[in-house]
């Protein structure tokens, strides 16, 4: 199997629901395993949301590009944006063992992506951030 999916998401929150729905449809059509499907939806929401919230200082329209590929028993998802440099792999991991009253509310999005994927990579190239997530489809 070697199948791909691409979509462009505008840098505003109104664009997210349609992008999420389109991705979900495609994942369902391809019968992608639940764990990989969950990761793909999570990556779309978390990385696009981060980019919209923190990626730009201007009010211009920007495009965040999403690519998925199912090949060699693996799902490979790439999210590329032209926002400020942001390496999610440098984010501190939240301490999820703290007592509940001391637990910070945020910081879980990137943490979940790192834990749910088999491999996560980041490069800054040609003025763009590119995050790539790998997930083995039938471990």
């Amino acid at each position, binding site marked *: 199997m070697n199948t791909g999916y691409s979509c462009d998401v505008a840098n505003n929150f109104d664009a997210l629901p349609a992008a999420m729905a389109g991705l979900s449809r495609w994942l369902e059509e391809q019968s992608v395993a639940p764990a990989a499907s969950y990761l793909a*939806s*999570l990556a779309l929401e978390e990385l696009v949301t981060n980019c919209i919230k923190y990626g730009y200082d201007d009010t211009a329209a920007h495009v965040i590009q999403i690519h998925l590929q199912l090949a060699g028993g693996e799902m490979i998802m790439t999210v590329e944006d032209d926002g400020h440099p942001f390496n999610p792999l440098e984010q501190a991991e939240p301490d999820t063992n703290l007592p*509940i009253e001391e637990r910070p*509310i945020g910081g879980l999005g990137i*943490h*979940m992506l790192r834990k749910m994927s088999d491999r996560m990579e980041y490069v800054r190239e040609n003025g763009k951030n590119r995050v790539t997530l790998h997930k083995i489809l039938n471990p």
Partner: protein
Amino acid sequence: MQLSFAEIDGNVRHLKLAGNLDIAGTLAVETKVLAHCGGEQPRVLIDLAETRFVSSLGLRLLLQSIKTVAARSGSISLLNPSIPVAGALEIAGLAAYIFRGAETAAAAALKSNPSVS
């Protein structure tokens, strides 16, 4: 995202979340969910059996709910999440709040062990 509410045994609040706890879904229900976590020693079941997806914003809501209930010396459980949703809860450090079984059994567990949270 749809939220339905019922009381079990008169004083256990059973909240059922059906759909996706993504940005849109979380924003649609967060005020109501947190309102149900108020009061004195609240006993709350958040039923996730029909919740298909929880993003970090959804996890924030669940964590905030747990904190709100704990601050009021109440008890709370996350009932019957699917395997992918349970995986997200575990990664977020919320495994101790997952309860699998009938809602009446969960309500009984809250009664007999109010310090479950």
